[in-house]
């Protein structure tokens, strides 16, 4: 599934997500719920900064960061990631965090699904083997 389709599904299933962006493993924007490219890029930049800041937090072990949440009085920001994609989303204040994270992980899984490969078309008159 491509980023736009995954984000469309996310917007449909999650009423709490106000805006979201999908990034590739190298930080490029693959899709966004915002109509404006500038808004999408600002959200993407903030997501990259959040990940960079979170990765610098000393954890004292080799565990890998997979998701984060920053809750502020004016709203919350969630970032989930896997090896190939990152999804960042903004919500209003006091969201149901577990539900939002679940929906974002669902979006991530949809992005990781391989597209269905269509069977090759058989030519008319081709002899069966």
């Amino acid at each position, binding site marked *: 599934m491509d980023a736009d389709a995954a984000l469309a599904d996310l917007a449909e299933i999650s009423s709490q997500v106000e805006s979201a962006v999908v990034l590739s493993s190298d930080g490029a924007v693959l899709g966004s719920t915002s109509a404006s490219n500038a808004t999408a890029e600002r959200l993407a930049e903030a*997501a990259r900064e959040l990940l960079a800041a979170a990765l610098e937090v000393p954890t004292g072990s080799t565990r*890998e960061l997979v998701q984060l*949440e920053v809750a502020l009085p004016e709203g919350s920001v969630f970032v989930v990631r896997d090896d190939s994609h990152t999804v960042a989303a903004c919500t209003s204040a006091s969201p149901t965090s577990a539900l939002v994270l679940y929906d974002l992980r669902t979006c991530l899984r949809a992005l990781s699904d391989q597209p269905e490969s269509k069977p090759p078309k058989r030519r008319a008159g081709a002899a069966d083997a």
Partner: protein
Amino acid sequence: MRRLAALALLVGGSLLVLARRRQSQRPSVSLYYDDGSMVTLERSAPGAERLVAAARGALGA
């Protein structure tokens, strides 16, 4: 005695509501890891301010 108990309940309940409202207005940062563990950063923790600032940037986008 009954009036005293009712007054204590009223004051205690009000303080509890105020304390919860104040807590919900504080920024909170939670980090989740692949081993299932989670870390919640206090405001004074290293990196917390940077994360809060980045989140404000996202919300303002």
